[in-house]
C-alpha cells in the first residue's frame, strides 16, 4: 500500500488511537458509575454458591487488592490503560485467577471463525437479495419471496437458533446439538477436526444469517434504486451488455460501496448481538464469554470483551478508510 500518503495514514492513525482511547476510557468509567462495590458483589457470589462465607472481611480485603480497587482512582485508571495496551485486562473475578486475556484468547478464534464468517455470509446474501429486489429481471417469485423472508429479521436470534436446532439437530439429526467440535475430536490441523468444526458451526451460523440478512437487504435495496437511475446504468444497457453483467459490475459494484462502511461500523455490534446463539449451542466464542461474564458480573471480562469488540470495530473502520479509495477510485486519501 505504498500509494497511501503518509499524512493521510497519520491522520487516520490518530483518529484510530483517539477512538480507542476514548472508548477504553468509557468502558472503564461506565462500570464505576454503578454504586455497587465489585468486591462485595464477588463476595456475594461466593455466598450465593454456599449460602454463607466465613471470614468475610479478610476475603473482602483480598478481593479489593486483587481487583486493584484499593488504590486511588487515577492510579487504577492509568494502570488499566497501560494494561489495555498490551491486552492485559487483569484477572477474571469469576474464574480467578485466570487472566482475562487468556479467556479471550480461547474464545477469539471461535468468534473470528464462526461469527465473522457468518457476518460475511450475511453481508453477501443480504446485499445480493437486496439487489435482486430491485433488479428488473429478477423472477417475480424472488421479488415476493425476499421481503417475505425478511420477516425472519423480527425473530430474536435465540429463537431462530432454537427452531433450527429443533428441526435440523433434534428431529432430522443432520447437525450436532451443541459444541464447536465433536466430543472426541482433538483440536489440531486435521481434516477430522476441520470437518467437525464446519459441521458444528453450521447451525449457529445459519441462525445468525437468517435473522440478520434483512438489514443488509433493506439497505441495499435503497442504494440499488439510486444506482438504477444513474446514467451509467442506462448506457450499460444501451451497450447491449448482458443483464447479469450489468447487475454485478455496474449496479451492485456501485451500490455496495456505502454498505462496506456500514459493515465496518456494525461489526462489533453484530458480534455482541450473537451472544445468545453462542449460548444455546454451547459454542464457546466471545459471545458466550460475554454472556457468562454478564451472569457472573465479571467486569474485567466484560471490559476485556468490550475492548476487543471496540478494537475490532475501530480497526475495521480504519481499514475501510484505508482501502476505500482503492475500491472507490473517486475517493482520494485526503486528510480531512
Amino acid at each position, binding site marked *: 500500500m505504498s500509494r497511501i500518503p503518509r499524512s493521510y495514514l497519520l491522520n487516520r492513525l490518530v*483518529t484510530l488511537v*483517539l*477512538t480507542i482511547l*476514548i*472508548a477504553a476510557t*468509557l*468502558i472503564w468509567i*461506565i*462500570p464505576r*458509575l*454503578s*454504586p*455497587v462495590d465489585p468486591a462485595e*458483589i464477588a463476595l456475594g457470589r461466593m455466598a450465593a454458591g454456599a449460602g454463607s462465607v466465613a471470614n468475610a472481611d479478610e476475603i473482602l480485603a483480598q478481593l479489593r487488592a486483587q481487583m486493584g480497587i484499593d488504590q486511588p482512582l487515577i492510579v487504577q485508571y492509568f494502570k488499566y490503560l497501560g494494561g489495555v495496551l498490551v491486552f492485559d485486562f487483569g484477572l477474571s473475578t469469576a474464574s480467578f485467577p485466570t487472566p482475562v486475556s487468556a479467556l479471550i484468547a480461547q474464545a477469539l478464534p471461535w468468534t473470528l471463525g464462526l461469527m465473522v464468517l457468518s457476518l460475511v455470509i450475511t453481508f453477501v446474501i443480504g446485499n445480493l437479495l437486496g439487489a435482486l429486489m*430491485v*433488479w*428488473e429481471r429478477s423472477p*417475480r417469485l424472488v*421479488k*415476493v419471496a425476499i*421481503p417475505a423472508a*425478511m*420477516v425472519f*429479521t*423480527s*425473530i*430474536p*436470534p*435465540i*429463537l431462530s437458533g*432454537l*427452531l433450527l436446532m*429443533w428441526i435440523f439437530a433434534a428431529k432430522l439429526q443432520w447437525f450436532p446439538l451443541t459444541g464447536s467440535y465433536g466430543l472426541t475430536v482433538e483440536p489440531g490441523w486435521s481434516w477430522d477436526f476441520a470437518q467437525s468444526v464446519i459441521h458444528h458451526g453450521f447451525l449457529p451460523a445459519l441462525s445468525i444469517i437468517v435473522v440478520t440478512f434483512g*438489514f443488509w437487504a*433493506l439497505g441495499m435495496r*435503497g442504494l440499488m*434504486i439510486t444506482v*438504477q*437511475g444513474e446514467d451509467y446504468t442506462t448506457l450499460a*444497457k444501451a451497450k447491449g451488455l448482458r443483464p447479469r453483467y450489468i447487475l454485478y459490475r455496474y449496479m451492485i459494484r456501485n451500490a455496495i460501496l456505502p454498505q462496506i462502511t456500514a459493515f465496518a*461500523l456494525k461489526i*462489533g*455490534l453484530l458480534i*455482541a*448481538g450473537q*451472544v*445468545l446463539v453462542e449460548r444455546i449451542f454451547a459454542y464457546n466464542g466471545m459471545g458466550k464469554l*460475554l*454472556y457468562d461474564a*454478564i451472569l457472573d*458480573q465479571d467486569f474485567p471480562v*466484560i*471490559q476485556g*470483551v*468490550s475492548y476487543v*469488540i*471496540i478494537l475490532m*470495530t*475501530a480497526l475495521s*473502520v480504519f481499514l475501510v478508510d484505508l482501502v476505500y479509495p482503492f475500491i472507490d477510485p473517486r475517493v482520494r486519501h485526503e486528510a480531512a
Partner: protein
Amino acid sequence: MSNFSTDDNVAESTQPMTRAEKRQARRMRRFDNPWLNPKLLWGAGLLIGIVLLGILGRILWNLDLVFTGSATLKLPPVGFENLRRQPGVWDHPLGTDGSGRDMLALIVIGAPNSLFVGLLASLIGMTTGIVLGFTAGFVGGRTDDVIRVLSDVMITIPPLLILVVFQSAFGDVSLTMMALLIAGFVWQSPTRLIRAQVLSMKQSGYVQMARLSGAPTSHIMFREMLPNLIPYLFGSFIANVTTSIVTAVGLEVLGLGPQRIPTLGRTIYEAINAGALIQNLWWWWGIPTLLLAVMFIGLLLINLGLDEVSNPRLRRLS
C-alpha cells in the same frame, strides 16, 4: 413492451388490454395521491392493529390475568390440546403460559409495550441525531470533530456493557429507561447521515439562494433544509423503530430488560427459559413472535411505502 419496468408486473403489459386498462385506472388513482400507497396503508394498518389490540384489550379483557397463577398452567389456545391432553378453554382463548398467566392478557399489555419502547427509543435517537447531525454539519470545525469522534466511539461500545452495569446498579429498568438506553445506540447513524446530508445541502443551490435572500441561519436550517430531510427522517425513524424493537427484544431475551413488565421479548425469554420448545408449548413463544413479525412487517411496509412516496422513481404505474 418496455424492458425498463422494475416493478413486479413485468408480464402485465402483454396481457389483454381490457384487464390491463382496468388495472391501469386503479394504479393511476394511486399515482395521483402518493399517500394512498397500499404498502403504507397496510403497514400503518398493522401497527394500528397492535395499538388497537392494546386499547380494546384493556377495555374488553381482564388484565388481572397477567398475574402468576391466574389459571391452569400451559393451557393451549382454543381448539388445541397440550401434551397433558388438556384442551384449550374460552376463558383463555390464546392459552396460558408456564406460570398460568393468560396469553391474551400478556400480549394485550406486552405488544404495545414493545412497540412503545421501539417508538420512544427511535424518537429520542432521531432527535439526538438531528440535533447533533445539524450541529456537526452546520457549525463544522472542532464541534464537528468532537461529534464525529463521539459517535464513532459510541458505535463501538457494546450496548450490553451499559445495560449490565445499569441493571446491577439499579436492579431493574423501566420501559422508559430501557428506551433511553437503546436510544443511546441508535443515534449514531442518523447523526452521520444527517451530517452528510447537511454538508451536501449546504452546497445546494437553494441554500445558496436562501443565503442570497438574507435568510438567517435558523431559517436555513429549519425551513429550508429540514423539510427536505423529512422523507429521509421518516424512513430512518421507522428503520430505527425496527432496530430498537429488535435490540430491546434481544436484551430482554438475555434477561436484561424490565423484569416485571410484560413485553413480547420478555415473554419469549420466559418461554425459552422454561423449555417451551421441547414441551411443544408453541403458543407461548409463537404468539409473541408472530406479533413481533406483524410489527416488523408493518414497519417494513411503511418503510417501503415511504420510499415510494418520497421517491417518485419507485412510484411506477405498472
